[in-house]
């Protein structure tokens, strides 16, 4: 698994790494699912589209994961596969287009209140990208 939970006194911290940014976003979502104990019904499968823009990739990551938090709470739906495109439209304008693939949640052990910006910094490494995300729980 290209993610690991890091110690945090009250909330959750998740370190995620991947070869490219779309994979980093997907693994962050899967890591979040693992932390919250999410499990999906086998069928029927569902799809949702998501579009966002922001000043940087970190803003897009928060928006992307926050969307999943919303679906989990409001529609009792989880997602385990993602088609993600990221791009830059100009200075301070980054965009994200995503298709979420998932199903109704069969279990969710722990609700996430929010995805935070705390020390959020997507860094380039020798092997791709890495980020640590802190979730308020």
């Amino acid at each position: 698994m290209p993610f690991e939970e890091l110690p945090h006194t009250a909330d959750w911290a998740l370190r995620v790494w991947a070869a490219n940014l779309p994979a980093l976003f997907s693994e962050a979502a899967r890591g979040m699912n693992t932390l919250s104990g999410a499990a999906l019904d086998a069928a029927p499968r569902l799809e949702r589209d998501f579009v966002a823009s922001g000043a940087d990739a970190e803003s897009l990551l928060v928006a992307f994961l926050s969307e999943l938090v919303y679906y989990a709470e409001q529609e009792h739906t989880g997602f385990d596969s993602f088609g993600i495109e990221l791009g830059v439209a100009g200075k301070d304008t980054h965009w994200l287009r995503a298709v979420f693939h998932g199903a109704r949640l069969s279990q969710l052990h722990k609700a996430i209140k929010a995805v935070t910006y705390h020390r959020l910094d997507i860094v380039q490494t020798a092997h791709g990208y890495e980020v640590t995300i802190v979730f308020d729980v």
Partner: protein
Amino acid sequence: MNIDNLIKISDYEWEIPTHVRHNMRVPVRIFATRDLLEQVIEDKSLEQAANAATLPGLVGHVVVMPDMHQGYGFPIGGVAATEYPRGVVSPGAIGYDINCGVRLLASRLAHESVKDDMDRLATLLNNYCPSGVGTEGVVSVTVHELDAVLRDGAQWALKHGYATENDLRRTEEGGRLEGAKPEKVSQRAKQRGREQIGSLGAGNHFIEVDVIDEIFDEEAASAMGLVRGNLAVQIHCGSRGLGHQVCTDYVQDFQGAVRRYGIELPDRELVCAPLDSPEGQAYLGAMRAAANFAFANRQLLAFSARRAFEEAFAGKVKRGWELTPVYDITHNMGKIETHEIDGRLVKVCVHRKGATRAFGPGTPELPEEYRAIGQPVIIPGSMGTASWVLAGTAESMKRSFGSSCHGAGRVMSRAKAKREVRGEDLRNELQRRGIQIRTGSLAGLAEEAPQAYKDVDDVVETVSAAGIARKVARLRPVAVIKG
């Protein structure tokens, strides 16, 4: 940062001076014993307090309470006041669970006379007070009706028969913050809140039945209706998904605001906007609306708790099962208040994140019966340990912007707590000690094990010895309902 960076003011008070960090605008004052400080030195509490001290427009000093622990930008247990209107408001310094707080209700029922009924009472509370992940509340309202909740808070509950006048009198701000702007709350936040009014949620939120175990201040306890040996109820929860979404929306929005206003911060979670800016005013309106939702939420849970007490005891005992309000306090909030700073009265926005307002005697905002004794301050413990009722003091007004601690404060991560504690073992142990437990998740119970928290008695001794709160009563749990 380590203890050597701090200046010791007294055995209960420490300072991080501004020279520790080049961008600190004010010092940080920490209320803690050396032992409590050493318990958090490994986490990021002190660094986060120093980061909080970089917010523009701060006055006095940033204050940190002895139940402090690492948060996600602003430390839990932190208080920061920014001058109105030139200072800033920071959503992350108030938190995602806007107006998370505690309501204390007192009965005149002696525990000794009904101790065999605690099992049934716990089951009734669990049945009537919805809890757990994503739970729906006791009422569902239309989006239009939700606007009335956001505008009127607990007054909405009064209008619909879920509250008494006395409930509102004994709620901070009368259960309704002026200046709420439902139109500044996103549709998404409203969708999340529409079906959650009167629900506990999960995490560290709970309903707890306690026995009033010891009285330390007879006059204050008498004014609050607290009698040794009688049952009381604590309700700990906040603004649910609606509040979480409001904070998420504005932290995202303020990422642009800091660039527009040229504000540089050490952590993006501390993003902020000037109080008098359109962004700042919009957030204050939305935050107050979410706070009103939380007041209504705790009020409906109190209504449900009363229903459980009535069903458990009406007809079985002659009297005393009615639950009367002691007080309802908030510990995650931004409030415009006036405080004396360096000899002058200054209007400020007090950010309290995991810190309780603790106004001292004589404060006009308090109900008449509490003006002589100070505001009740409710400090929940950690399930198997004591909880406390304190009172605000004149010193809290001078030294901590009328604030005190809010709980025991975590010292152990949730993952470690789950590794070290089995939920089933914990439940059995607590039940052996005479504490009825109802929970939707044994793993969640393990995360909240008493050993994951500091000793609440040490925290209370510290604020008491420092003079920023006064001990009134200690409570002992006999039934806990957790999501």
